[in-house]
C-alpha cells in the first residue's frame, strides 16, 4: 500500500469520444471580456510594428513630432476655411503613406469612429430647424413647418467633421509612427517631471506583464474546468483571481523596488535624454513651419 494506488490505475478510455456537432457553442461572458482586453493590448503592440518600420516620420525625432503635432492641433482649431482643412488632411494623409502606413489602415482607424461620435453630434445641425438657411433638399412638412437640409447646415457639419478628422488623424499618425516610450520621453520638452515619465513607462511595461499573468491564470482555470461553471462559480473564480493578481502585483512592485535600489536608485531618477537633431529633422521642422504660416496667411488675409 503506497496510498496512491489510484494514480497507477487507468480510469478513463478514449473509445467513445463525444464529438460535438459542427456548430460551436457560444463564448461565456468572462471569456469575451478578457478576450476583448487582450486583443486591445495586442493591437497596441502590433501598432508598435508601424513604429519600427523605416518610413519618413519614423526617422523624425519624437520630440520634434510631439511639438509639431501640438502646434498643428492649435492651427486646426484656428482655421475657418474648408478647403484649407481639406488640404491639411491631404498633407497628413501623404505623410502617413510616406511613413509606410497603408491607406486602408490609416483611413479605417480614423473614419470608423468619426461618423459614430462626431457624426451623431453634428447631424441635427444640417436641418433648417436647428440652423436656418437656404434649403438644399426639402424633406417634407411637420405641421406647418417645412423640414429641409440647408446649405449652411451641411457646410458647418462638414466643417466640424473635417476639423475633427484632421485632428484625430494627426494624433493617430503620431501614435502609429512613434514608440510609446519615445512619446513619453518627448514629454520632457514640455517639462513634464522625469519621475512621472519614468513611472508611466514602468506602468506601461508592467501592464503587459500583468495581462499575460491574467491570461495564463485564465488558461490554467480553463484547462482544469471539467463542467461549465454556473454564473456564481464564474464570479467567484474571477474575484479570487483578481485578489491573487493584486497580491502578486504588490509582491512584484516590492521586488522591483529592491532591484532598483540594488542598481543605485536613491529616490531621484536619472535618465538619458539625448536630443540630437538630424538634417531630416530640421527639414521637417522648416517645412512644417512654412506650411502652418501659409495656412494662417490664407485663412486670415
Amino acid at each position: 500500500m503506497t496510498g496512491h494506488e489510484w494514480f497507477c490505475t487507468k480510469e478513463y478510455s478514449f473509445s467513445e469520444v463525444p464529438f460535438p456537432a459542427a456548430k460551436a457553442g457560444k463564448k461565456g461572458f468572462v471569456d469575451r471580456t478578457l478576450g476583448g482586453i487582450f486583443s486591445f493590448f495586442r493591437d497596441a503592440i502590433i501598432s508598435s510594428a508601424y513604429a519600427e518600420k523605416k518610413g519618413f516620420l519614423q526617422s523624425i525625432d519624437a520630440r520634434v513630432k510631439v511639438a509639431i503635432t501640438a502646434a498643428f492641433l492649435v492651427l486646426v482649431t484656428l482655421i475657418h476655411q474648408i478647403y484649407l482643412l481639406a488640404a491639411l488632411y491631404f498633407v497628413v494623409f501623404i505623410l502617413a503613406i510616406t511613413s509606410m502606413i497603408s491607406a486602408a489602415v490609416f483611413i479605417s482607424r480614423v473614419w470608423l469612429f468619426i461618423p459614430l461620435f462626431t457624426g451623431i453630434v453634428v447631424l441635427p445641425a444640417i436641418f433648417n430647424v436647428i440652423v436656418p438657411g437656404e434649403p438644399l433638399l426639402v424633406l417634407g412638412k411637420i405641421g406647418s413647418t417645412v423640414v429641409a437640409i440647408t446649405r449652411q447646415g451641411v457646410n458647418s457639419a462638414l466643417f466640424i467633421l473635417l476639423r475633427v478628422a484632421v485632428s484625430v488623424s494627426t494624433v493617430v499618425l503620431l501614435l502609429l509612427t512613434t514608440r510609446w516610450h519615445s512619446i513619453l520621453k518627448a514629454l520632457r520638452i514640455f517639462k513634464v517631471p522625469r519621475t512621472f515619465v519614468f513611472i508611466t513607462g514602468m506602468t506601461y511595461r508592467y501592464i503587459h506583464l500583468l495581462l499575460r499573468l491574467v491570461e495564463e491564470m485564465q488558461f490554467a482555470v480553463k484547462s482544469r474546468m471539467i463542467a461549465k461553471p454556473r454564473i456564481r462559480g464564474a464570479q467567484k473564480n474571477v474575484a479570487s483571481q483578481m485578489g491573487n493578481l493584486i497580491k502578486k502585483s504588490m509582491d512584484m512592485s516590492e521586488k522591483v523596488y529592491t532591484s532598483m535600489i540594488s542598481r543605485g536608485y536613491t529616490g531621484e531618477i536619472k535618465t538619458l535624454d539625448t536630443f540630437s537633431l538630424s538634417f531630416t529633422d530640421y527639414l521637417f521642422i522648416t517645412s512644417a513651419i512654412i506650411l502652418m504660416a501659409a495656412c494662417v496667411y490664407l485663412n486670415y488675409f
Partner: protein
Amino acid sequence: MSDKIFELKNVSFYYLDKFPALREINLYVEPGEKIVLLGANGSGKSTLLHILDGLLFPQEGNIQFFNQAINENSFNDEKFNAFFRKRVAFLFQNPDIQLFSSTVKDDIAFAPLQLDMSADEVNKRVDEVMKFMRIEHLKERAPHQLSLGEKKKVSIGTVLSFNPDVLLLDEPTAGLDPRSVREVVDLIIEANESGKTIITATHDLHIVSEIADRVYVLNDEKRIAASDSTKNILMNEDLLHKTNLIHIHEHVHEDLWHTHTHAHHDLHEHEH
C-alpha cells in the same frame, strides 16, 4: 587580518518576523573568490544573496563588509550607499523584476546613470555591453517582447554595465537552454579571471565545479550543512543526498534493473 569582502556571523533572518528563512549562517567571502551557495528550492539561497546585497537585514547576527559591521543605517548614508552599490551587483532570479525600464537600452543604462556616469560614457558603455553580450539587435525592444533567454542575457547586461567588483547571481542559468547555460558559465569564469568576486546561488550541480572554488551547502532547515572545497562537496554523496540535491535513481540497462544515486553532475559515472 585578511580583508574579507563579507563576513556573516550567526546570521538569522525571519520573514514577517516569524517565518525563518536563514538560521545561524556563518560565511565569509574573500576578494577574487568564486563561491557557490548550493541548496534545494526553499533552502534560503535567495534570501542570503539579498542580505549580502544590503537589501534585507537580519534580525540576529552581524554582517561585516571589509571588517566593519554594517546594517540598515549604513545604507542611509549616501556616500556609503553609492560606494557599495558601485561595487556590488545583484542579478535577480526573475528577469521581469530585473528589467523594469521601457527599453533594453534604458535598462542597461539605468545603473551607470544612477551612479553618475556622464551621458556620453553611458551611451558608449551600453553599446559595448550589448556587443559583448551579443544583444545589439534588442537595443530598442521593450523587455516584455523578449524571450526568457533574451531577458536573462539582458538582465546580465544590466549588472555588467557598471562594471562591479562583486557579482551576486541568483540562479543565473535557471530555465536556459544548454548553449545559453554554457555562455553564462563562460562569462562567470571570464569575469572571475579578470579579478571579480562571484557568488552564485544555484541547485544546478552540472555547473558547480566550473564556477566555484568553495561551496556552501544549505539544507532544508535553512542552515549551512557544509562548507568546503568544490571537489570535496561534490564527492560527498551522502551530504548531497541529505540536502535533496541528488536522488536515488532506478533504471534499466539491457533488461537489468538497478538502483544508484543520481547526481546529474560532472563527477557522475557508474559501471555495469
